[in-house]
């Protein structure tokens, strides 16, 4: 931390909040609110004179409320910058007549009660999100009696109690009688791996944290008995199994099973843990002096705000989602944004440091080049066709399009920010957006070719590159059988599948059309898949109005890992195809004949030239 603070190339903005991020890779403008500290950071030497005179006390957040601090304080001993901060809501000096003691005592005149928040705009090329996580609050787990029984504490509180810099200077005591406990129980997976309360995932760090705590206790107090109640101990990192075995050798007893209930003895304030004996059956009661709940972690409560600022994706567990779990594990889907640490998933210090190094290297690599190469699949606006309606601006998940709807100037795509999902192209009501390598003409040519002969026997399926198409691949490599009359058209995202492609397929005699894409949580283009769903819902209505059975348009979300589902869906869709009669197909062809008519000459010519230009540029 101190090194970071001193580094000539690092500007540290502590006690600040990012309020806005505009721009795109290489050209971000970040608006930061530097919160008023009421203390001059440059002058303050953290001498502590003000602490001695400040009459206000408040729970110390860093000490988990186990100690108090003053209204003017240093957040924690190693805080950088090494300067004080004044909590103006607690301070009486807001009205200097009421107090003003710190102002009087500070030799360096650091205190300024009139300090104001300051906004600064910073231009940066890349952004690394390292916003961390939050620790689970076990109060809702009534069976453990946290907050009801004082001798039930969390692993975070235990950490402060055993820390030599903590409120007890590292002396392990019970909170009720301030005596050293004779027996300590740890309960694992509190708030983790639970479908009912807390979180369903493993928090990754709690097992090893408990193993470390056991070793700490045994090093300092070999006479203390330790019992660890667990589901299973996950000691999978380098050297972790060794540590686990060492803690057992030193006397920590690991008992399989999580207590269903804790009761306090009102006299001794000891705690009785009732736990199923998974070996012999029945319920055992273990009496201990102190219980440590090994609490899990979860995504920060303000993750929504960060997600919106940087157009990020989140996985179902609430943590930020990487662009690709194996190939881009530290990149966000938004170009130029990276993750490190627990913002992306719960992880320990070593993994956080590794990921931070990787994120820094990835960011550096981009910035050293001074330019970015974008994949040749971005969107292009055809200015002559654009009516500046602004729909594409709302559609784009990456905020890559801008359009002045008042001035009626054509929309503009920032190619560096465009990821090429194609949702804008499919949603533009005027056909004013074309996608390089996935132009309307290219896709329409595929539809026409696939349905040229025996269209009544084919199942035409649109599959997105990342999930459904890969699901198809997996079905193939696993030899899952699916009907050979399936014809797949790959698009980068299901959001690219324009309504007119579906109608064209029906007009060309397709009995069934399947549109498949990623599950919502896996969408590789943040939320472009939502546009697919909305479009299909509208299409069902439209087909019905035209007397076409809506079920002839099927919609499926298939992930890259769901080869089995891909095959099952294809078989089910083939069953549906067999129920479509030749008369029905003929009726549909007639009802949709207008779809195949060439567009108005001017627009068509414009679009064709632009698409050719785009194709050439891409090549």
């Amino acid at each position, binding site marked *: 931390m101190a090194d970071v603070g001193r580094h000539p190339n690092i500007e540290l903005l502590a006690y600040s909040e990012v309020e806005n991020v505009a721009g795109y890779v290489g050209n971000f403008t970040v608006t930061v609110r530097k919160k008023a500290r009421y203390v001059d950071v440059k002058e303050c030497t953290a001498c502590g004179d003000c602490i001695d005179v400040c009459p206000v006390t408040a729970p110390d957040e860093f000490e988990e409320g186990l100690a108090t601090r003053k209204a003017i304080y240093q957040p924690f001993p190693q805080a950088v910058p090494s300067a004080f901060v004044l909590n103006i809501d607690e301070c009486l000096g807001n009205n200097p007549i009421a107090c003003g003691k710190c102002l009087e005592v500070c030799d360096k005149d650091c205190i300024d009660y009139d300090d104001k928040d300051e906004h600064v705009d910073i231009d940066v090329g890349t952004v690394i999100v390292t916003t961390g996580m939050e620790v689970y609050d076990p109060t809702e787990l009534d069976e453990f009696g946290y907050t009801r029984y004082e001798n039930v504490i969390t692993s975070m509180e235990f950490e402060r109690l055993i820390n030599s810099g903590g409120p007890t200077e590292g002396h392990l005591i019970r909170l009720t009688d301030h005596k050293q406990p004779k027996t300590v129980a740890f309960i694992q997976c509190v708030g983790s791996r639970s479908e009912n309360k807390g979180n369903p995932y493993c928090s990754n760090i709690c097992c090893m944290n408990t193993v470390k705590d056991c070793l700490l206790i045994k090093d300092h107090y070999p006479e203390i008995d330790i019992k660890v109640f667990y589901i299973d101990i996950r000691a999978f990192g380098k050297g972790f199994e060794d540590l686990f075995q060492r803690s057992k050798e030193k006397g920590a007893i690991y008992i399989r099973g999580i207590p269903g209930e804790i009761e306090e003895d009102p006299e001794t304030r000891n705690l009785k843990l009732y736990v199923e004996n998974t070996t012999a059956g029945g319920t055992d009661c273990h009496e201990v002096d102190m219980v440590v709940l090994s609490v899990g972690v979860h995504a920060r409560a303000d993750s929504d705000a960060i997600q919106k600022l940087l157009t990020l994706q989140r996985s179902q567990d609430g943590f930020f989602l990487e662009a690709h779990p194996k190939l881009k594990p530290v990149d966000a889907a938004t170009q130029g944004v990276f993750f490190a640490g627990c913002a992306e998933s719960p992880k320990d210090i070593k993994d956080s440091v590794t990921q931070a190094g990787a994120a820094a290297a990835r960011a550096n690599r981009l910035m050293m080049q001074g330019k970015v190469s974008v994949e040749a699949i971005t969107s292009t606006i055809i200015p002559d066709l654009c009516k500046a309606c602004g729909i594409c601006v709302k559609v784009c998940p990456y905020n890559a399009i801008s359009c002045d709807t008042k001035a009626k100037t054509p929309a503009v795509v920032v190619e560096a920010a465009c990821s090429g999902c194609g949702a804008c192209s499919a949603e533009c009501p005027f056909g004013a957006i074309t996608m390089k390598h996935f132009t309307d003409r290219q896709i329409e040519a595929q539809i026409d070719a696939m349905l040229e002969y025996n269209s009544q026997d084919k199942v035409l399926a649109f599959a997105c590159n990342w999930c459904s198409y890969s699901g198809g691949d997996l079905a193939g490599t696993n030899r899952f059988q699916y009907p050979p009359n399936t014809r797949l058209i790959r698009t980068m995202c299901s959001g690219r599948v324009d309504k007119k492609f579906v109608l064209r397929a029906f007009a060309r005699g397709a009995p069934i059309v399947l549109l498949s894409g990623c599950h919502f949580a896996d969408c590789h283009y943040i939320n472009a898949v*939502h546009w697919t769903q909305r479009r299909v819902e509208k299409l069902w209505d439209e087909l019905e109005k035209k007397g076409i059975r*809506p*079920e002839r348009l099927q919609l*499926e*979300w298939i992930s890259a890992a769901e080869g089995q589902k891909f095959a099952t869906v294809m078989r089910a869709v083939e069953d549906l195809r067999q129920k479509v009669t030749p008369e029905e197909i003929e009726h549909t062809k007639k009802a949709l004949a207008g779809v195949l008519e060439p567009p108005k000459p001017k627009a068509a010519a414009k679009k064709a030239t632009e698409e050719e230009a785009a194709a050439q540029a891409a090549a």
Partner: protein
Amino acid sequence: MAEEAKFKCLRCMSEFCLPYTPGVTEERTCPNCMSNSVRRLKEKKE
């Protein structure tokens, strides 16, 4: 509490109720055949 609405599966044609918030797009699955071709049945105006 989210409202419920009536949905129809366009694969197996079964009808069922699912939570529904107007204006919110959600991934839906037919409880009968697991298809995602789930269409909301709009109430017909009298």
